[in-house]
């Protein structure tokens, strides 16, 4: 028995303690979301009643449906586009030798050290001009925000992908080239399918990062109809913190759905690719 405790028991102990830590906030959110009263002060860890009132109010009284669509479109388009742009650059850095390659790689890393949102004043001023000239890609538009997010497409992800490209044997492209394939054919037909795992992981990470992005979106989207989920949900509890808490928690649970779906969709690649690195918080 003591042997079991020493070799297996402590493992369960650690698991259960961390599990409690992990689950308390989530159970609380679920319980608040189905709490019929829908206020923060009446929310408990164990639900006292169950109703879908918060969910129906969320769709009826706020622009939640609109925010949801905005977030999905912006996050999905920027994730896909940034993965593609990053893969293009990673191919050049991994397979081609050209002047400025080393400087370029280091520059990509260094520029990322200046987080984009530190330059938010400049971004605000630039987009004030852009909004005057081209309202279609200015403030409160999907395309403006997507373009802004794509400015960060070349970055840590490019390094991740370059590392992955490096592991593929060069003989592959060489033999294809011998057979007369152009560089575009080598890239699109041969290499891109082989790096699918890292594409999936960077897509997931980009998606999670974008759907959670608050600061730039908050400055960029002021119009009620153009808000994304973080901006909209923040607005719900910024003023009426107590009264809207149930709706907010309902919104939180619904927001988790796309992330979980993308996670499930890409799951078979995730475990390998995650070790290649990135962060969330």
């Amino acid at each position, binding site marked *: 028995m003591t042997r079991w405790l020493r070799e297996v028991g402590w*493992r369960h102990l650690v*698991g259960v303690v961390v599990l409690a830590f992990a*689950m308390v*906030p989530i159970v609380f959110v679920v319980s608040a979301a189905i709490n019929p009263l829908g206020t923060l002060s009446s929310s408990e860890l164990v639900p006292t009643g169950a109703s879908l009132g918060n969910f129906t109010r969320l769709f009826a009284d706020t622009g939640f449906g609109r925010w949801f669509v905005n977030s999905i479109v912006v996050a999905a388009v920027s994730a896909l586009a940034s993965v593609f742009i990053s893969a293009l650059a990673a191919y050049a850095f991994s397979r081609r030798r*050209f002047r400025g390659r*080393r400087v370029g790689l280091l520059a990509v890393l260094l520029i990322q050290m200046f987080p984009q949102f530190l330059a938010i004043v400049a971004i605000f001023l630039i987009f004030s001009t852009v909004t005057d000239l081209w309202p279609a890609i200015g403030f409160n538009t999907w395309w403006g925000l997507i373009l802004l997010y794509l400015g960060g497409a070349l970055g840590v992800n490019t390094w991740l992908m370059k590392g992955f490209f490096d592991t593929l044997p060069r003989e592959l492209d060489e033999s294809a080239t011998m057979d007369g394939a152009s560089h575009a054919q080598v890239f699109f037909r041969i290499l891109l399918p082989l790096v699918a795992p890292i594409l999936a992981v960077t897509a997931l990470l980009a998606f999670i990062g974008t759907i959670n992005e608050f600061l730039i979106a908050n400055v960029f989207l002021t119009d009620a109809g153009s808000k994304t989920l*973080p901006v909209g*949900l923040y607005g719900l509890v910024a003023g009426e913190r107590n009264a809207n808490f149930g709706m907010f928690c309902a919104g939180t649970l619904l927001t988790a759905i796309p992330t979980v779906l993308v996670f499930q969709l890409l799951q078979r690649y995730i475990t390998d690719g995650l070790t290649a690195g*990135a*962060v969330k918080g």
Partner: protein
Amino acid sequence: MTATKLGGPVTQARPAPEPERRGGSPAAILLKATLLGLAIAIAVWAAFPLIENEKWTGLAILVATTAGLLYLYLTPRHIPLKYLAPGTVLLVLFQVFPVLYTASTAFTNFGDGHRGSKQEAVVAIQTASVTQVPGSQQYALRIATTGDPATGPLVFLITDPATRQVSAGDAGGLTAVPGTDAAAAGYTVLTAGQASLRSTEITAFAVPTAGGAIRSSGLSRAYEGKAGRAYDEGCDCIRDTTTGRTWTADESVGAFVGADGDRLAQGWKVAVGLGNFTRVLTDPAIAGPFLRTLVWNFAFAIASTGGTFVLGLLLAMALHSDRVRGRTAYRILLVLPYAMPSFAMLLVWRDMFNTDFGLVNELFGSDVDWFGGSTSARLAVILVQLWLGYPYMFLVATGALQAIPRELSEASRIDGASAWGGFRRIVLPLLMVALTPLLISSFAFNFNNFNAIYLTTEGAPFPADNPANGATDLLITYTYRIAFGGGGAQYGYAAAISIFIFLIVAVVSAISFRRTRRLEEVHS
């Protein structure tokens, strides 16, 4: 990065390609033509507003970029650049350019009260000092806008009672409106309800005229008042016409300064050299909070990264055994925090730490004002980061542990090492090789983890004597408050701090990356 060699070893090695293969299949050619056509169409679309607004520099850049891209994708040369161009163009537009702009702002006093030119400041001072005097010209007033009634720019439509002439006035002055129909001239007249919602704006609104300005008195009448303060070119100063007091222009600070050091609120933008940087380092009112914030910023980044790593690793090791039943269930539940939207969970945690009805106090039966004291607030935000961040470290550490052959630790066991010794000497070093780059990027991320603070404590608690810098403020949230906070925006100063942050993160990361093999790959 722009200069490229023709091809690389790969392309040089191949035999001369047959001509018909060089362009690829008809479908590929069609796709390429479509994409290039689209690029031209977008460029043409973008060009019209530039021409209309006479932005010739912008137009030149647009034409040059488009021509460059067309050349690049039509020539068989410069292959690497074909792959780098899309990302690079976006990078330059939305990262390099804003970063350079921020850097240049850091050398000016740009901010509230110092936005425009000196000329604009003079107009603003004169307009603001307008008062109604006996005999002021009266007008009938309609409040209108060229945009949305709730947010569009205001325009005063005034009717001269004698001539019935209607004029439109905005910050640029008066212009005559042909006819009397406001809607025909493109203006939307605000209803009384809409106007009263914007009454503060309307009261402050003034249309500059030759001797003063037109201001509203109520929502339907306006008067042309006389400026109480005027600019005197002879002494380069502002003179108050009633008291005779003067404020002389000081080009070094971009403001009109009185004899007793009193400054007028409306100034202009001037270069201040390294003033913002030295202010951070030498002004005791700023240097103190800055250093304190810097130390806490490091502590926060290290504790968040280290804490999540230790917890994630501990968990991964605990579950890394075939003898633990229900491992799959554990794993699914343990990574759930990773699936929840982090911005929302930060707000939920904020409410869980609420003193009066928060869950934390309720569960422990305590009555702690978590965000009221420095220590408890700091512990709270680190705890929240731990919750958000450990699942990722757990996933990563699980993957890395599985990649380490079991024979290694078994062999060390046979050689007489204890379980702990085997872990410390064999497993941990191997893990660190794989995970160090992750820890560095996690550190860099947490160092500037804006959401972690802004969505929870908002920097609280604040010391009584300094409402601009709280105990849990990171440099990034502190900067954000300076740049956008209620106390008047100071973009120039905020930009200077941004550069400090950039230097700190870049140096820390550069030193760390030197130790990893990632950088070595660059030199291969």
